[in-house]
């Protein structure tokens, strides 16, 4: 039976919520519908950055990561809201609930996108109908638009959902790749970032088709194992299965934030560290997790970025501990140049209920002492 399943052509959906944060705000307050809306980290600060925006705002040239002042100049009528994560999370939960009513094989990738394996949910020729149903349910029940990509694997489904927005349904068939996927510029391929695109262009690869036809050996020379992977994907091959548990394999939880202006003021830096540690603590608590490494990221005014991490003796979860070790890293590695951005990440994450450490007769006293050092801080 397992063999049969492997050989069977799979039908994978990639559901991608359109302008998710902005759409949720519009569903929440219908007065916002049809308006140029942006969600920005810190609307009061001049340097706040656009997290996402509605299509109406995008039409005026507003883009994600754009500073607020620039967006306002392009689109003076722009309505700006602070992000309301609780709202987005509950919308996301409701969306995934609808998906999981169709099949248990749903893999959430982030708050606003996920894969479904619908191979066993009916004949392949009915797949489009099924996608329409899902799209309509999400629209009618949650008042949220989404795009759905349909393909025989995750990579193609992801590319497909990106092709028509908003409220698109796109099918990518392997035999049609030469006309659908291959003409796309290489930057648009999922998995190709700026750096990779630069390298590929140096190899005269400008479209996904160029990549598909490129010699694997040459690609590996430049990109290592990733070169082979990208070439496979460009040819429409991706064996990854839809794994409902993948979301639980989180390895790290972090938070980073740009300062309103570059600074060497210790007070300001400390204040930001507290905010970041609090964020990380909140996320850890929500996931019922603890971590055993801590990482600090410092981006300087000249955009030079360093990350430094430390493996810890014990698991941490409280903001006091997170802050204590993050500060230790800061003191050790900050070269006193002006800082633009800071990030704190707790790594080697484990779900609390999965960890248990058997104490040792000959070392338990030391362990108890370690405990004290941290809590006395």
């Amino acid at each position: 039976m397992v063999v049969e399943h492997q050989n069977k052509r799979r039908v994978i959906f990639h559901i991608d919520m359109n302008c998710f944060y902005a759409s949720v705000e519009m569903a929440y307050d219908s007065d916002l519908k049809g308006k140029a809306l942006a969600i920005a980290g810190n609307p009061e600060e001049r340097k706040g950055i656009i997290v996402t925006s509605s299509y109406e705002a995008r039409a005026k040239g507003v883009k994600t990561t754009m500073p607020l002042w620039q967006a306002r100049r392009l689109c003076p009528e722009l309505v700006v809201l602070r992000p309301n994560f609780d709202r987005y999370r509950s919308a996301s939960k409701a969306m995934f609930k609808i998906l999981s009513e169709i099949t248990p094989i749903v893999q959430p990738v982030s708050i606003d996108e996920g894969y479904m394996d619908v191979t066993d949910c009916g004949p392949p020729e009915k797949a489009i109908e099924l996608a329409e149903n899902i799209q309509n349910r999400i629209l009618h029940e949650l008042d949220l638009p989404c795009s759905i990509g349909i393909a025989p694997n995750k990579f193609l489904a992801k590319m497909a959902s990106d092709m028509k927005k908003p409220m698109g349904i796109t099918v990518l068939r392997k035999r049609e790749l030469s006309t659908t996927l291959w003409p796309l510029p290489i930057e648009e391929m999922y998995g190709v970032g700026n750096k990779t695109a630069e390298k590929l262009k140096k190899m005269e690869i400008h479209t996904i088709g160029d990549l598909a036809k490129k010699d694997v050996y040459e690609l590996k020379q430049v990109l290592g194992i990733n070169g082979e992977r990208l070439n496979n994907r460009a040819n429409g091959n991706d064996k990854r299965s839809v794994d409902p548990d993948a979301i639980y394999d989180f390895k790290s939880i972090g938070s980073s934030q740009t300062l309103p202006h570059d600074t060497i003021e210790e007070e300001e830096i400390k204040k930001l560290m507290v905010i970041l540690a609090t964020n990380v603590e909140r996320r850890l608590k929500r996931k019922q997790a603890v971590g055993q490494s801590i990482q600090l990221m410092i981006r300087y005014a000249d955009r030079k970025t360093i990350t430094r991490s430390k493996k810890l003796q014990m698991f941490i979860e409280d903001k006091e501990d997170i802050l204590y070790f993050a500060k230790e890293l800061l003191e050790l590695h900050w070269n006193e140049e002006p800082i633009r951005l800071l990030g704190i990440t707790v790594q080697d994450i484990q779900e609390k209920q999965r960890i248990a450490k058997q104490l040792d007769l000959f070392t338990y006293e030391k362990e108890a002492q370690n405990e004290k050092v941290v809590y006395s801080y």
Partner: protein
Amino acid sequence: MKFIIQRDQLIASIQDVMKAISSRTVVPILTGMKIEVKQHGITLTGSDSDISIESYIPAEEDGNVNVEQIEEGSIVLQAKYFPDIVRKLPEKTVEIEADENLKVTIRSGKAEFNLNGQDAEEYPQLPKLQTDDSFELPTDLLKSLIKQTVFAVSTMETRPILTGVHIKLEEGNLTFTATDSHRLASREVPVSDSNTAFPSVVVPGKSLNELNKILDDTEEPVEISVTNNQILFRAKNLNFLSRLLDGNYPETSRLIPEQSKTVLYAKTKELLNTIDRASLLAKEERNNVVRLNTQGDHVINITGNSPEVGTVSEEIVVQSMEGEELKISFSSKYMIDALKAIEYEEVKVEFTGAMRPFIIRPANEDPILQLILPVRTF
């Protein structure tokens, strides 16, 4: 060499001696069993060079004749075949005969086996122990001491000394102590003839396990004596010799907490059964962890939880409880082992906090001590 022997007697002796024989040994002749025939009786010997066992069958005992038609001599027989042959022979008596070419004939009724023997001269001499520094202990007490401690030895070779039981005789008190560093078991008994100078030694847990299997539950005395690197247990018709472990046993007494913050008294069986039930949902993956919460003066709550399977919770009413409230997690396996070793109806459990060892003793203060290190959970 020749003798005729009661088959049951021979089988019993063979079974004891086989405990020391291993098919994997560096000295080839040790895969065999030595049979030594004297007018007064027969001695069987097995050894894997760590443990050596001698079992003696007297020709005559309490007026019964066990062995007859004795012609003195000795031989070594393949332990792979000899025991099975004797067990399956048809009659109540067995005749064994060896000629000068080391050919051995085993007869019983109409069955006749011809085996190739080996020269007993080539079998290593067991070290002769001086028995001046020795003391005696009733067999059943020795068995108790072993059973109450040996399960706690380490099974890992990372700290070899912990794979043994520490035996110490001081000021008329004999103490057995074993720890794998996650739990510790110890028992103390007074010894009557206590003027003996007996060095503290560490006996491999494996040796004591085998010894316990061989010894009968009687009140007859076992004589224990020690040289530099060997310990001898001498019971009636049985010598059990074991190698000792080299090295210093860690000082454990100072690691045992002297004060406690929470003390509870409970029925041993009840506590054991509750933990056993909770352990059903606390398998392997997470060290068999169960959690104990105190609830008021007379109730404790035991819970188990396997993320993928489910949870279990059970309240048990204890005899009494004093001190601070407590939430502690520990290995159900260690707790079950410890409670089984208590051997009394009521136990006293003393805690000193969720991160520190706790102690389980019989409520009547008999010096059996079981100590368990908790598991740190989040």
